């Protein structure tokens, strides 16, 4: 076990998979100088400029070229820099990468991983702060992954690279510096399996990405008041781990979904709707969702914070959920 950052965990995943499989390569802007956050630091030296490829500022072509390169037997890792810029390549991702295998009747697959750093990162404002994971979960053909810890970033990115279909891989910018233990040796985390980050039986909190940590902090605070929350970090958003979530909600009877993204039509709505459909009779209180209001992310901290789900909001929501049910 060694302690390392979320950023370096992703870097290690790329190194290990590139060493393991010559077909794997990465492409994106500035990769030769380590990428915008240092995720690819020194990798061009290790693997050469062919396999850690600098590209023009041509997002549509980065994504489209990856589709073509995946069709010809390579396994590209696409670096989009900020998930916001992936909007310049959405046709290539949604109409091409995601659909090709199906449209062409299963003649081939499109194995590619699209790394799109998401989330609020102090004062990055409206074009560098978005979390659009719910969009991708809506698109047939895509796998959607959002790691929250260093170990998961290592193990999930490795699994994503080995996956034979396009994976949208959403790292959270605010987690780059987060430290945690990384297992020695090969560490694979299976796609589609949630992590029960904390056990509890008073309420089930379902979350992912950066909000895992806020939920855990809130849960610790609640524990001091005797409320034991179970915190489930989905890790993979499509396919999401219905079984783990449903089992927990069956036990607790209470569900809070916590997301950083805009709540309206966020992925939290899918979780909430699914649980409402399947477990209505087992719920002891109405499901609650927390997420950002439907506003762009502002630059000034006090304004930006209005788009953040704070620990206090989570604590309040849990308290509301476990309060005795009002007569109705």
């Amino acid at each position, binding site marked *: 076990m060694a302690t390392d950052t979320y950023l370096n965990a992703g870097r290690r995943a790329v190194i290990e998979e590139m060493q393991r499989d010559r077909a794997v*390569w990465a492409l994106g802007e500035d990769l030769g100088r380590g990428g915008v956050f240092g995720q690819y630091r020194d990798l061009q030296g290790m693997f050469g400029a*062919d*396999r850690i*490829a600098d*590209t*023009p500022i*041509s997002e*549509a*072509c980065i*994504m*489209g*070229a*990856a*589709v*073509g*390169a*995946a*069709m*010809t*037997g*390579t396994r*590209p890792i696409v670096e989009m820099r900020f998930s916001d810029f992936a909007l310049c390549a959405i*046709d*290539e991702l949604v*109409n*091409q990468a995601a659909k*090709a*295998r*199906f*449209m*062409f*009747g*299963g*003649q*081939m697959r499109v194995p590619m991983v699209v790394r799109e750093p998401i989330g609020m990162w102090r004062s990055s404002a409206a074009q560098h702060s978005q979390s659009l994971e719910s969009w991708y979960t809506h698109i*047939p*053909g*895509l*796998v959607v992954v959002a790691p929250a810890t260093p170990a998961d970033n290592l193990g999930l990115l490795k699994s994503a690279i080995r*996956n*034979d*279909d396009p994976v949208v891989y959403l790292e959270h910018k605010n987690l780059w510096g987060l430290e945690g233990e990384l297992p020695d040796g090969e560490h694979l985390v299976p*796609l*589609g399996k949630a992590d029960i980050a904390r056990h509890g039986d008073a309420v089930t909190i379902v979350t992912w990405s950066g909000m895992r940590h806020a939920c855990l902090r809130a849960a610790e605070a609640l524990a001091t008041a005797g409320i034991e929350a179970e915190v489930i970090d989905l890790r*993979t958003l*499509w*396919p999401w781990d219905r079984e783990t979530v449903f089992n927990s909600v069956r036990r607790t009877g209470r569900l809070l979904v916590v997301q950083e993204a805009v709540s309206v039509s966020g992925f939290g709505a899918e979780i909430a709707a699914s649980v409402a459909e399947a477990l209505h009779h087992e719920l002891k209180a109405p499901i609650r969702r927390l997420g950002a209001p439907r506003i762009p992310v502002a630059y000034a901290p006090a304004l930006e914070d209005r788009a953040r789900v704070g620990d206090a909001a989570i604590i309040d929501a849990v308290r509301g959920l476990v309060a005795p049910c009002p007569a109705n």
Partner: protein
Amino acid sequence: MDNAHNLDRKRFGAVFALMHRIRAFEEAAIAAQKEGLVLGAIHPSIGQEAVAAGVCCNLQSADLLLSTHRGHGHTLAKGADPLAMMRELFGRAGGTCGGKGGSMHIADFGVGMLGANGVVGANIPIATGAAHGLKLQGSKQIVACIFGDGAINRGPFLEGLNWARVFDLPVLFVCEDNGFSATTRTRDMTAGAGAAARAQSLGIPAVEVDGNDVLAVDAATRTAIDDIRAGKGPVLLHCRTYRITGHTAVDPALYRPADEVEAQRGNCPIARLGAALAMAGMEPDALAATAQQAVEEMTAIAAKARDTDWPDPMAAFSDVQDMGDPRERAF
């Protein structure tokens, strides 16, 4: 067609047959659509066969091709099975894509045909990336990417060509210029001197040819591909042709004067090659027989395709993705 007398009769006899087969395939498809057998929109390339034939007869079978919504000719020329293609248009089992794609999404990876595309210009970055993938693997294959004149006004044209030159990729870009972008005259919406000038501004050599002269298309393609195979990077070929039919098979194309179309009918690339072959000594009977055979082949294929079963409806749930496959849940 100055060199008609020393024409390679074997080679161009085959090209002539191919062009007839493309024409006959599309005429059979248009007829089938009138009967309700073709289920979605089709975009015939009647009058444009010299581009498909002249380009693709220079591709090896391991080479790759990316095409457009108007791709039947390209696909046939790359060696795809017309019966499987017709079945695809009819939405039947045994279609090239199992009935999932239809005309605009025909692909046949078995013959190196990596897909038509329903999004104008989207094939350009994909082709570029396919060439990038080949180059990374040290392959000797090349990629041809055919797109329309309308596609050169989309951003991916710039991004793909710039990329292909930066990485010196083995791609032949072919602008199949039929003068129209759907119902719009492309020149009214296109600034500057066109595809070749744009390619040249990106450092990509470009050649303009009469796209209704298959001998010219063939010669230009051969030269271009020789350079590409020699590692010189991408080339663009701009072929001027004309779309005799409407944008889709049901478009009456009233936005262009009848005499313009009439004049263009007189410039038929198949007839022009026929004349050259005749001049080179090919018998009129042999020429007529080639046309006849193509019609018979495609008529028989259409008949066979109509007798084919529909695909299993449950196939709608397969080929989506391995993880999170919709079949894991009932619907």
